[in-house]
């Protein structure tokens, strides 16, 4: 399994990196940490490249390297990297260009299979889509954006599950709110919930939401299966059933003490494009971190 963690700076990304690495640990996955720098316009691409080469010849870091260096320090402090690597410091000399706008630092990991640090330049959504397509990540983890358009584009176009980290605080007692509604990916969402509950050592509140009595009857089976699966994995949980619009119900139930896990209703992009999707509507208002499973 492969996980992509998108960071931007120490100031804004420490929560995302912490959560991302814990999730990676839970899934025993290979995490890749990516920093996407500003887009450079086409008239200046080569010229900026030459200027950055000159900076390196003066032993000055190219922009973005300091973010990766901070991420490296974070990984070493939290023992995600082998001791040998930490003693030798941040291995800038292994920052290798692997494509026009992509450079990569190779590190050896301990807790995870492998850790990669990536530097990209460009428009963030385009770069993340390109990275996911290139490396086939299963989950992309990113901090919540100020722009709802960006969140929409992430949920619409990125071909992986997405974990949007929002207001995460390490000392808070969290619970997972697992929303089961009409969706193709319910089983996957339940499995992800178990892994995350194990990683964070927290319980799960299952909420089964049907638009009416008929649909809730259909979803009860999924609810039962989820409860059984959680019980088998020794996760403490509670279960409730609600009738109503999933967006309204979830927004009422989810608060800042929850990590919300839900799945996309449909895997038809055209349908999502025109009709919108429940996770996105929730994302606009919620105070919780949200994992959208697809």
């Amino acid at each position, binding site marked *: 399994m492969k996980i992509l963690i998108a960071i931007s700076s120490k100031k804004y990304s420490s929560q995302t990196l912490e959560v991302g690495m814990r999730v990676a640990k839970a899934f025993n996955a290979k995490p890749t940490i990516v920093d996407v720098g500003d887009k450079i316009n086409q008239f*200046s691409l080569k010229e900026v490249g*030459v200027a950055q080469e000159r900076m390196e*010849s003066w032993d*000055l870091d190219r922009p973005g390297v300091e973010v990766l260096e901070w991420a490296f320090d974070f990984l070493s402090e939290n023992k995600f990297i082998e001791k040998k690597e930490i003693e030798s410091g941040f291995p800038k000399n292994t920052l290798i260009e692997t494509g026009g706008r992509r450079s990569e630092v190779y590190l050896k990991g301990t807790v995870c299979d492998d850790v990669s640090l990536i530097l990209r330049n460009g428009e963030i959504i385009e770069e993340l889509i390109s990275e996911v397509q290139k490396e086939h990540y*299963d989950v992309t983890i990113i901090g919540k954006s100020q722009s709802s358009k960006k969140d929409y584009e992430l949920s*619409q176009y990125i*071909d992986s599950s997405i974990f949007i980290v929002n207001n995460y605080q390490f000392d808070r007692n969290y619970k997972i709110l697992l929303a089961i509604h009409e969706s193709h990916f319910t089983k996957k969402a339940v499995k992800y919930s178990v892994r995350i509950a194990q990683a964070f050592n927290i319980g799960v509140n299952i909420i089964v939401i049907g638009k009416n009595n008929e649909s809730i009857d259909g979803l009860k089976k999924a609810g039962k299966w989820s409860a059984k699966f959680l019980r088998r994995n020794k996760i403490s949980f509670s279960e409730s059933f609600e009738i109503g619009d999933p967006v309204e119900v979830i927004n009422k139930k989810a608060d800042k003490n929850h990590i919300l896990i839900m799945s996309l209703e449909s895997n038809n992009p055209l349908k999502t494009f025109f009709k919108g999707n429940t996770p996105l509507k929730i994302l606009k208002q919620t105070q919780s971190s949200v994992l959208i499973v697809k």
Partner: protein
Amino acid sequence: MFGPSNQILNNLLFWVSRKKWLIATFFISISIFYLPTPEGLSPEGHRTLIIVITALILIISESIPIPAVALLIIIMEVVLGIDTPNGVASTFMSDAVFFIMGSLMLAVAIVHQGLDKHLALMIVTLTGNKTWRISLGFVGVSAIMSSFIGEHTVAAMMLPVALSLLKNSGVSINRSTEISTLLLFSIAYGCALGSIGTPSGGGRNAIMIGYFAEFGLADISYLDWMKYAYPMLLIEIPLASAILWYTFTPEKTIMDSAVRKLKVDVAKSGSLNSNQKLSIIVFIFVFIGWIFLSPRIGLGIVALSGVFLYLSLRLIEWNDIATRMNWGIVILFGSVISLGIQMKDTGAASWLAQSFLDFSQLFVADQILTSWFFSVVLCSVMTNLLSNAATVAVLGPIVLDLGVNPIIMGMATSVASAFAYLTIVASPTCMIIHSTGLVSSKDYFKAGWKLFIVSIVLLFLISFLYWPMLS
């Protein structure tokens, strides 16, 4: 995750979301094509204007790669019946394009020599340790050097000098401060205002010289250009420096320890090696060639001769030039020059110029002043939105047809295209300093608008008081 068919659909939706301008451009072009040809404009001129509009939208929106825009211009010129394939090919390649290509190659060769450490020593020796003098030194040295070897080359060499000084003075180079903004803008604005000084300062200068010759208006030599433009460059250095100082006045007014550390660092790298000395000698030969030989063999051939020498003397390998050169820009310049010539030949440029004159007569009687302001203000605004060379290539044929002294109009347009102070995308130098993460888009406007107005006023005075004496 998506299945294969949904993945294709999703990619298509994403493509549409990112290519809105490309799709809009397609419909705009089709709509204009089916509009009746305006009175006084030939059908070929009508179709040429469709290409101009298409190219401008695509360059500004960057919805397709720049080389793709260049190729589209060439394809449309033939497909829309404006010229034959051979005719388009002959307008595509000219001495101006040779000159731009040669200058870009020379720039790569010069940067490759690693002369920046010696440049740093020269600057701090000249300026001493006072911050305002260092800022003035950065503006002055950037301006004078970029007038000969092109602005982005100088910016690439000056950037590590400025960052080293900042680092040595204990200033964090990971976050913006007044002093970092001051030094970085001293480089960017110095390079921009210096690029007007000689034809080799920027590709747009060569394009304008090409138009003067192509349209039979004048033969402007390298030295002639310097006589026109260099006084303005020299006046602007202290003005720009003062504007920057009062806009970004730093708390640290002395950089004593930083200068000392820099001198020690540079001393460690030793004196000029034989390759560096040889590369300076080759460039001096090129410069002499531009002054004395270009009237006979052309600026482009002199520049290419310089590249030939750099390659033959093994001062640089071809692979280094090939990988570091922005070939897309060369193709774009070739195609926009071709488009400019087609604008002239099909009468599209005259029609646009006449339409502007007819319109402006409704408001202002003085055609000379109106035409001057039209070309200078439009050019300096456009240059902040797209490439300055592309601006000159498109506007050049129009402003030369406005009925005012074409030398003054052409020079004013070319000089105004250097007023790229307001946006990050205005020029490669603006993008180079922005790429450090130490300057924000607001900073460009903060100092840029003052220098923008001062430059236009100065250009006005020079255009009407000094240039008529030379014409």
